[in-house]
């Protein structure tokens, strides 16, 4: 009963409801601007809400978080610039849809699916938090390493065209991610004695440059061609569309929750893995992937919003952040006199239910704000190129600067923009570069942790993999996914199919 009352707190207090709504609204727009991240917004809010009570402060933060994760899809669909790393996969099929004049439909599907994913994430948080957090804790360094390898195999799905070029892009990303002071031993890597490189290359700067600036440069070539007229009559997807994608969205939501709950991986990896999953399980996509498949929107958007609920799981049950935003929220709870940790659920169970309630509310607001104002948004794509291109450049520069308030990042961003332009020109996919940067540290750090833990004994390392059920499952997944991308697999499947055929005939 107390739990229900606590759950309803946000609904019964108009000022909390207003703050969640305000936060979600702001989050959608903060999330849509590349470089302005939710992490940044929430950390600014910590000082801003310092003198408030804990509930209003948390309500506002949760709103921004939920709205922001969703907002990243807007610019991804409309301009091919992901507003946040978790929207990279969204751009791959969202932007082709906008180019066909279906931006409204794409945003509609994205919004409804984000809402659905968000709901699944919250449901798992509310119903199974302790079990999921124990599962997340059982991930050893070698399991994180295997997860990263699994992630790297996504290069295959993220590359359209030549796989060799995709592998090149992925490796480039891994190398970019390794630049700077190694966070484990503080050894300089790829810095060539230049102090500027010690801090590494901002991954957001790479992303904005590769997607934003290179897009602007590409569009320069067609500066006089007319913009695509956007159809906005069908924004809310029909019930049939939703129903058709229900099984897929359930699967990708669960991918999102688990990846989100793991301390050390977040919505960006979840969205990419979900995209890959969709590509594997969808036999007949509405259109080929990469050319505007609805499934290519459904998967990443359900996953990254489900990851929000997931990230709260270790935070609420153990006081361990599931991602960067929940790390800041833990700090905020401290400042407001609570002690987030395993005891929080015991001493203040109400807090848990208030947060679940706020998440549900934020998710509902997200649906509301997402489905309104689309008309205005789609107008952006209909702008004449002469206006649109400078706008993209401006957004990119502001975004790159805002991450660290550093002009150096702006130069990096511009440099990678020009580089990305040539990569596109010669058919090198950009997605794998970002994938590589995201996974670089996860792979590198955890491989070293794993092998150091086993006292640099490869035998013990493989023994560990074979004896731990979790590691074994992950290894089998890695092997199967790897094999499925080789011609060997196709030949085997082909032969199997033939044999079955013959049996049926005979």
């Amino acid at each position, binding site marked *: 009963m107390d739990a229900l009352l606590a759950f309803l707190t946000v609904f019964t207090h108009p000022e909390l409801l207003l703050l969640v709504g305000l936060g979600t609204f702001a989050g959608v727009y903060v999330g849509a601007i590349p470089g302005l991240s939710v*992490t940044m917004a*929430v*950390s600014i809010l*910590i*000082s801003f809400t*310092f*003198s408030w009570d804990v509930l209003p402060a948390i309500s506002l933060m949760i709103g921004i978080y939920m709205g922001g994760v969703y907002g990243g899809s807007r610019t991804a669909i409309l301009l091919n610039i992901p507003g946040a790393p978790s929207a990279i996969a969204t751009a791959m099929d969202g932007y082709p849809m906008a180019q066909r004049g279906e931006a409204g439909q794409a945003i509609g599907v994205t919004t409804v699916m984000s809402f659905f994913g968000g709901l699944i994430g919250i449901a798992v948080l509310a119903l199974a938090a302790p079990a999921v957090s124990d599962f997340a*804790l*059982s*991930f*050893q*360094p070698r399991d994180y390493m295997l997860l990263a390898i699994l992630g790297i195999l996504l290069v295959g799905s993220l590359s359209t065209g030549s796989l060799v070029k995709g592998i090149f892009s992925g490796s480039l990303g891994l190398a970019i991610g390794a630049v*700077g*002071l190694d*966070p*484990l*031993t*503080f050894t300089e890597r790829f810095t060539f004695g230049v102090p500027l490189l*010690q*801090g*590494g290359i901002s991954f957001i700067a790479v992303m904005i440059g590769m997607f934003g600036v290179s897009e602007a440069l590409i569009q320069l070539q067609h500066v006089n061609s007319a913009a695509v007229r956007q159809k906005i009559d069908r924004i809310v997807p029909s019930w049939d569309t939703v129903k058709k994608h229900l099984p897929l969205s359930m699967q990708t939501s669960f991918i999102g929750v688990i990846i989100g709950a793991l*301390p*050390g991986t977040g919505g960006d990896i979840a969205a990419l893995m979900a995209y890959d999953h969709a590509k594997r399980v969808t036999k007949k996509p509405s259109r080929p992937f990469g050319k505007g498949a609805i499934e290519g929107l459904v998967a990443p958007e359900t996953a990254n919003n489900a990851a929000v609920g997931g990230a709260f799981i270790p935070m609420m049950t*153990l*006081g*361990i*952040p599931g991602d*960067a935003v929940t*790390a*800041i*929220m*833990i*700090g905020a709870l*401290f*400042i407001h*006199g609570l*002690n*987030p*940790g*395993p*005891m*929080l659920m*015991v001493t203040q169970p109400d807090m848990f239910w208030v947060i679940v309630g706020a998440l549900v509310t934020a998710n509902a607001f997200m649906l509301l704000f997402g489905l309104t104002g689309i008309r205005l948004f789609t107008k952006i794509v209909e702008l004449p190129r002469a206006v649109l291109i400078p706008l993209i450049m401006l957004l990119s520069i502001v975004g790159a600067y805002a991450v*660290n*308030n550093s002009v150096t990042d702006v130069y990096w961003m511009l440099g990678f923009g020009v580089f990305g332009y040539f990569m596109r020109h010669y058919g090198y996919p950009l997605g794998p570069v970002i994938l590589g940067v995201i996974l670089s540290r996860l792979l590198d*750090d955890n491989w*070293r*942790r794993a092998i*150091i*833990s086993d*006292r640099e004994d490869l035998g013990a390392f493989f023994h560990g993999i074979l004896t731990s059920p979790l590691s074994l499952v992950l290894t089998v997944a890695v092997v199967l996914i790897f094999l499925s991308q080789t011609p060997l697999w196709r030949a085997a499947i082909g032969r199997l199919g033939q044999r079955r055929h013959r049996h049926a005939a005979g």
Partner: protein
Amino acid sequence: MKASILALAVAAAAATGAWADDAYPSKEIQGIIQWGAGGSTDTVMRAVTPHAAKALDGNIVMQNKTGGVGAIAMRYVQSQKADGYTLLMGAENPQMYKVLGLGTDDYSDMIPISVLARGVPIFVANNDAPYDNMAEFVEYAKANPGEVRVGSTGPGGLTSIVLAMLTSQADVEFTRVPFDGDGPALTALQGGALDVMPAVLGAAIEGVKAGRMKVIGLVDVEENPLLPGVEPITAALPGMSDYLPWGPFFGVFVKKGTPDPVVAELQAAYAEGAQNEDFRKLMADRGFTIMAIAGDEAMEFLDGYRSVSSWLVYDAGFAKKSPEEFGIARP
């Protein structure tokens, strides 16, 4: 509108130098936090600074500038004007920059505004570990060299120094698994990827209270009110008292050359801010000892920390340069 005209006038006056230092602060003060949002340094700074800003009757805007074990933030503050409008909000790390070759400056090249608080390191262990106190732990580690997996947060970090203290007293060998921060390492400890982790009390206390890990040692000379019944490490290893009390700290600093009246005003503001009840309670809950010292007292504490840590690190063999090169005396 009126306010912006006023601000413009103030800016113009400041630009022409018509206003003397007594107008400090005449504009927004920037606080550069050395570590990421949500971490201990961040929490402490965001908790105390609003109170200090109130005492100062000014506005302090904080932002996190991370990277290079905090060296990036320090380099940034040192590259700004020495006018008291850029504060460095840092932890203990810069005191090791010189010997570890991470930077050319440390806190002796800055003016301390306030050393706010000090943390107490403790040893925590996985619940399944077959030892419950320091004596048993040392005995076990001796009998099984290299078998105990200890989390490490990099050379110069708290774990490396505490382990250097321990190995100077007992001939033990560990497998050191690197993690970026005590948070992820403590997570790994609960999941069984680590056996033992030296961490600051505040970071581990909630997990200890919930029974998810156990305390096996308190690296201090006296008992701690948050850990009743845990005897200080000096009981098992009396030689440790040479280094103790020692602990990570948090402080606010400005560039050398900042005018004295400005320094005095900032020092008074942070001294007042640190008296705030909410702040004191927050620090007590997290197991930090409030210091709130400035001036010579702060310099003395900072020098002591630097000398103990630098020589420990040097003697343990992972310093890049000898502390002697920088005139750091042996403790």
